[in-house]
């Protein structure tokens, strides 16, 4: 990598912008703007900066539709919207997936459309922290806002999560390094622990690394809970961890003033999925009998939690909600996206602010090759290669303002700093336009 000179050639700075990358939603970014382009970003991590300073080559700028040869052709907005509305209006099992990288304001329109046509609406939680939500529903959810950790925590545990790669500023801004009211020496006042089979970049900088074996999460937490209840462990090594280490760790966790457990997809994606979280929550609940402990899932997209919150207050269920019978239905494995695709049920798939082409297993994506796919996004990505209609949206938090919810559910209004490309349309406008056009088709059919 080469050294790059600081950018000095800019017109003005827009301060306190919110990063549209991960669930940390850092709201202290300064954008350096020149001629309606963000030419540099201050305070952002590598991930945030790279997203905000997007690749213009692959920006979706015009509506497109596949022709009879399967090649994408530029069309005007009316043509594309009408075609998409026609597909949606005539679908029997439409599925609207995505939403985690757009604003709550857009989701509102999306939900109205979903309810109107009787579709399934789902977001990225379905392939990331869905199991977390299920565990929360089973056993509870002792969480906090991130400032609680910053101001009070003297022990921070990361498990199944590698924030140095996925949430690079998390440790610096919220959990480990910052000086808090009761932790004035910052990093020196805290013990950082990583439980992870891998010697991840986060494990490398931790005070304690607990390398439990792959798929050993459930039994490991079960053993700690048993020790908390005063039980003598039978085995010498549990999930790859020596008995004494488990006893010492349990003792250490009991004796902190304020502990925080952050967990990621390492827990949700291994063998016992939601049950890993289930038992980790139980563990944190148990620890509260001795001292203060809280936990939080490390949410990925900047508004993935926002969608779950939005759906919960609008319709009582967090994700994977099926309106096909006129009322909302939430049934894990039945009304959720990957299961529906595996079963080859959907007959129209709309993806907005998400990239299943990049993130769904091939076995699930295979069905997208059989049905019409409508894509609303800002960049040409793997999903574009499967899309029949492409509708270019705008960039929330850079070009369009909107509301998002941080991983700890703190709502943040993301402002806009520059104007969107003239040929693009805001996500909210696109979805509303689809809604109006679908309504017109349906009303006329009556």
């Amino acid at each position, binding site marked *: 990598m080469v050294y790059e000179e600081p950018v000095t050639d800019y017109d003005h700075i827009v301060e306190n912008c919110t990063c549209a990358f991960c669930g940390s939603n850092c709201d202290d970014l300064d954008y350096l703007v020149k001629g309606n382009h963000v030419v540099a970003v201050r305070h952002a991590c590598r991930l945030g900066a790279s997203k905000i300073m997007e690749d213009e080559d692959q920006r979706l700028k015009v509506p497109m539709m596949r022709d009879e040869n399967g090649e994408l052709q530029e069309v005007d907005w009316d043509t594309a919207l009408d075609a998409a509305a026609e597909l949606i209006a005539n*679908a*029997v*099992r*439409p599925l609207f997936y995505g939403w985690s990288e757009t604003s709550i304001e857009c989701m509102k329109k999306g939900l109205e459309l979903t309810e109107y*046509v*009787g*579709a399934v609406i789902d977001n990225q939680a379905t392939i990331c922290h869905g199991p977390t939500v*299920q565990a929360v*529903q*089973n056993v509870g959810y002792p969480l906090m806002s991130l400032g609680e950790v910053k101001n009070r925590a003297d022990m921070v545990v990361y498990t199944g999560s590698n924030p140095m790669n996925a949430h690079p500023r998390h440790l610096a801004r919220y959990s480990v390094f910052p000086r808090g009211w009761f932790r004035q020496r910052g990093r020196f006042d805290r013990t950082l622990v990583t439980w992870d089979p891998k010697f991840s970049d986060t494990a490398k900088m931790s005070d304690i690394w607990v390398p439990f074996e792959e798929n050993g999460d*459930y*039994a490991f937490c*079960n*053993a700690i*809970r*048993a020790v*908390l*209840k005063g*039980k003598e*462990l*039978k*085995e010498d090594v*549990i999930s790859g961890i020596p008995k004494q280490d488990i006893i010492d760790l349990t003792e250490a966790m009991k004796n902190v003033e304020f502990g925080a457990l952050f967990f990621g997809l390492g827990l949700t994606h291994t*063998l*016992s999925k939601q*049950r890993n979280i*289930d*038992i980790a929550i*139980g563990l944190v609940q*148990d620890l509260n009998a001795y001292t203060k402990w809280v936990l939080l899932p490390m949410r990925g997209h900047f508004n993935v939690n926002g969608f779950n919150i939005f759906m919960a207050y609008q319709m009582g269920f967090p994700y994977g909600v099926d*309106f*096909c*019978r006129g009322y909302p239905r*939430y*049934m*894990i*494995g*039945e009304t959720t996206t990957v299961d529906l695709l595996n*079963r*080859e*049920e959907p*007959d129209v798939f709309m993806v907005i602010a998400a990239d299943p082409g990049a993130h769904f297993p091939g076995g699930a994506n295979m069905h997208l090759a059989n049905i019409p796919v409508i894509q609303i996004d800002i960049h040409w990505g793997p999903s574009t290669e499967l899309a029949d209609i492409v509708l270019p949206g705008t960039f929330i938090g850079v070009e369009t303002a909107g509301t998002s919810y941080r991983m700890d559910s703190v709502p943040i209004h993301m402002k806009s700093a520059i104007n969107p490309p003239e040929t693009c349309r805001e996500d909210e406008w696109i979805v509303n336009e689809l809604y109006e056009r679908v309504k017109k088709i349906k009303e006329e059919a009556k």
Partner: protein
Amino acid sequence: MKTITLTLKKFSSIALEFEELIPDTVYNWNKEDFENYQVPVGNSRFPLTNYFDIEVEGDAEGPEDVKMILEGDMGRVKYIGYRMTDGEIIVNGDADLQAGAEMIGGSLKINGNAESYVGREMRGGNIEVMGNVKEYCGTSYIGEWRGMSGGVIKVHGNAGKQLADCMSGGEIYIGGNCDILAGIHMTKGYIEIGGDVTRWPGGQMKNGTIVIKGKLSYLLEGFDPEGVFVDPEVDGKQLAGKYIKYKGDVGVNGKGSLWLDAEKNRNLL
């Protein structure tokens, strides 16, 4: 006695929802009623006759006099026997999600495999599956801590993951093998597994009974041995042979009992 036979003639990859076609609602339907009936499919309803040949024979005073026979691959027919209180349903083929969910009484027999959620939140009646069941058989609804509370589920084949989550009553018999976390969060009831079990039966169980007649690969730390018993009587059932009894899950102060066949699990003796 009324016999209703629905024979599949067209398979729909979008699932049909059958919760309206249970003995409680159809006992007084004649053939014409079925032919006029529109079955929910996705966000629409289509004539049942698009998918089925229908035969109706005999009369019924109530659901108890009804026998429904579903012929063919019901792999995309959900909610068979949902909330039924009486009568009989026989599936000659595979069944889709939620077969016998929230069932109150009567009997459901599946002469094939069944998808997930067989007998979810079942309160009474009998379910028999001749083949395998997938995940969450006899489970609770997500978030609900009161699961299956009554009735009997008998599976001749294997069961998938997380059998009988939050079970709070009733009996489940699995003839074959069972995957991880059978009886998780269980508070009451009886589970008997004839074959082998992979990992962690009874995780966070508070009470209830799990009997494993095959080999268990991985037992949780939360279970304390209480001795070996010969031909024990467990929940009023006489078991034959030597069994190791465990109590757990201590992590949740559980008082559940886990019985393992001693011969098959000699390593634990």
